[in-house]
């Protein structure tokens, strides 16, 4: 029975666990509940992913109302893969979080913090699972609103978290509103909210001005959430001032989920022909992606705070996603999806390592990293591996990403783009080099009491680090999954659709 309903339980179990955290007064109990929910979601996502690969699309009708009338949870190769990413990062962050949260959040607020964490987690899982465009908006708001709160909870460490959260709230809300405005237009045109049904009804409307406006609103809305250059302004402060664990969670999942929604809009709701042939979107995405990669990487070079370096690097990575999409080919899309997975793993791992440093030193400026290579060897080793992966050294997952992105650029014959991609990864070498050099080669600050982070933080972090290496050495799994996802999105977005004959 659980297997049959797994698609919904996946989302609803964290959502059930969240109020239980409110009711539990003890932070430890709340953490236990959250960890159980996270682990359940993780196991569930793997089972669902295997099911989708073996048996095809899973469709779950909520309340037993058949789509397009009822809300449908629809898992294909693309979103079940994203589901794995989200629940993996989410589960690891929750497991890691106990000690870090004890340090950064006041004790009374900790159960509520876990509640928000679970809400955010469930919201992202919901966005990923649902096949209904409006339901997607609802889950998007669940995840966005709770993430604003989570960012604001960094105020205990630094009051600037409040303004950061406010900016994030304003821009995030604009993004969500733009999405829902666009959705409203599409609904007016098609009379349906089910994405698959929408896709069928849209065909033949390519000339419609309303559709073009709707498309623009939806893309810009999601662009804001994805922090596409130049819509990235909310991201650096939100990441820098949020509690460490929130940064790790958001960096690993929030932009990935936004990217997934963007792909859904581009490839499922509007078939690939519309954005790329009728609207020539690639000529917008390509320069924006390149500008994002370079501007953000160069800004990252001059940051004095490690979290901010990583945050700007995340904006640069959004540029890579966009490049992959702009190739408008299966290869490019696959590269984007591979990078989506890989970046989630490595960036979360990096932020968790920074979290360990914050736990011990209370600061995350580059200066406070001095000499940590000897004092916190395991943490810094994980950081170095993550950094190497971001640079794209072979045998790490970052290399796989870069390989497929460059290959996709060459397939299109866009060799200057290929050069730009390697040049961008070179900038990563410089901004990570600064931090790693400080950690290993500069004399430490006077405080000699700093020791290695506790095992309960190291173990989850190293899970990500090890997968960063293992999946880099053997990329068969991720690449074939990403290929299946890309083909599902690109080649036959409407395959396996039931012939809805709505009103």
């Amino acid at each position: 029975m659980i297997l049959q309903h797994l698609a919904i339980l996946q989302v609803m179990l964290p959502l059930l666990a969240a109020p239980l955290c409110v009711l539990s007064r003890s932070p430890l109990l709340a953490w236990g509940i959250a960890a159980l929910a996270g682990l359940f979601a993780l196991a569930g996502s793997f089972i669902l992913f295997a099911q989708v690969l073996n048996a095809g699309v899973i469709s779950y009708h909520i309340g037993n109302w058949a789509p397009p009338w009822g809300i449908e949870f629809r898992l294909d190769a693309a979103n079940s893969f994203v589901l794995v990413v989200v629940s993996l990062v989410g589960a690891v962050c929750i497991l890691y979080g106990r000690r870090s949260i004890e340090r950064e959040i006041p004790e009374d607020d900790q159960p509520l913090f876990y509640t928000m964490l679970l809400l955010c987690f469930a919201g992202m899982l919901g966005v990923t699972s649902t096949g209904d465009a409006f339901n997607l908006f609802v889950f998007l708001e669940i995840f966005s609103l709770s993430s604003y709160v989570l960012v604001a909870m960094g105020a205990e460490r630094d009051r600037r978290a409040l303004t950061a959260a406010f900016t994030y709230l304003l821009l995030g809300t604009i993004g969500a509103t733009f999405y829902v405005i666009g959705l409203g237009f599409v609904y007016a045109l098609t009379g349906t909210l089910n994405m698959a049904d929408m896709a069928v009804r849209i065909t033949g409307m390519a000339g419609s001005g309303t559709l073009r406006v709707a498309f623009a609103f939806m893309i810009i809305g999601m662009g804001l959430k994805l922090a596409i250059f130049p819509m990235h302004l909310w991201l650096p402060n939100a990441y820098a001032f949020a509690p460490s664990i929130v940064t790790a969670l958001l960096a690993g999942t929030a932009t990935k989920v936004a990217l997934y929604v963007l792909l859904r809009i581009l490839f499922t709701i509007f078939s690939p022909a519309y954005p790329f042939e009728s609207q020539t979107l690639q000529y917008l995405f390509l320069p924006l992606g390149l500008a994002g990669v370079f501007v953000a990487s160069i800004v990252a070079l001059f940051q004095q705070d490690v979290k901010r370096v990583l945050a700007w690097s995340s904006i640069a990575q959004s540029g890579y996603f966009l490049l992959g999409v702009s190739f408008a080919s299966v290869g490019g899309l696959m590269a984007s999806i591979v990078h989506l997975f890989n970046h989630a793993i490595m960036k979360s791992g990096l932020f968790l390592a920074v979290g360990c440093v914050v736990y011990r030193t209370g600061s995350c400026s580059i200066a406070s990293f001095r000499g940590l290579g000897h004092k916190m060897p395991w943490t810094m080793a994980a950081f170095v591996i993550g950094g190497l992966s971001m640079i794209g050294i072979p045998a790490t997952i970052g290399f796989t990403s870069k390989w497929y992105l460059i290959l996709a650029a060459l397939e299109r014959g866009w060799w200057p783009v290929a050069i730009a991609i390697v040049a961008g990864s070179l900038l990563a070498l410089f901004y990570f080099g600064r931090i790693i050099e400080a950690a290993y080669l500069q004399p430490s600050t006077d405080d000699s009491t700093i020791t290695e982070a506790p095992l309960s933080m190291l173990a989850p972090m190293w899970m990500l680090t090890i997968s960063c290496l293992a999946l880099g050495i053997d990329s068969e799994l991720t690449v074939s999954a990403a290929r299946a996802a890309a083909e599902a999105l690109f080649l036959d977005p409407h395959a396996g659709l039931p012939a809805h004959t709505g009103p």
Partner: protein
Amino acid sequence: MKHHIILRIGAKLLIPLIMLLALYVQFHGDYGPGGGFQAGVIFASAFILYGLVFGLGELRRVAPLPILMKLMAAGWLIYIGTGYLGLALGGMYLDYNILSSDPVAGQHLGIFLIELAVGITVASTMLAIYQCFNAHQSGEMTENE
């Protein structure tokens, strides 16, 4: 507040009526305009009026924040629980038909439970927000700060 006798008497007269209206909107929601959200807001407004007239301290006594938090979670749990009830009875998530032998009665029961859950959560949330904001205004710090 001792001197504002008109306010005190007026409020005492109005509050039960507001609550009654809230209950009407709540339970009539299945058939006509209304529903849990509106009912919750109206219900909370009765308490807020009480708080305006008799002071925040008094309001805290009748509606303490910890209880409100539990109520919020409880409403939420009822909502989710109704969904799980559908599963437990062998249907889909949030499947109302299965809640009773008669599908129509099942739908009725299901929507009743959901609206109830929404009502509880909305009412307690509104009250909590009012208390927190009011505390800020009067310079007090709440435990939620």
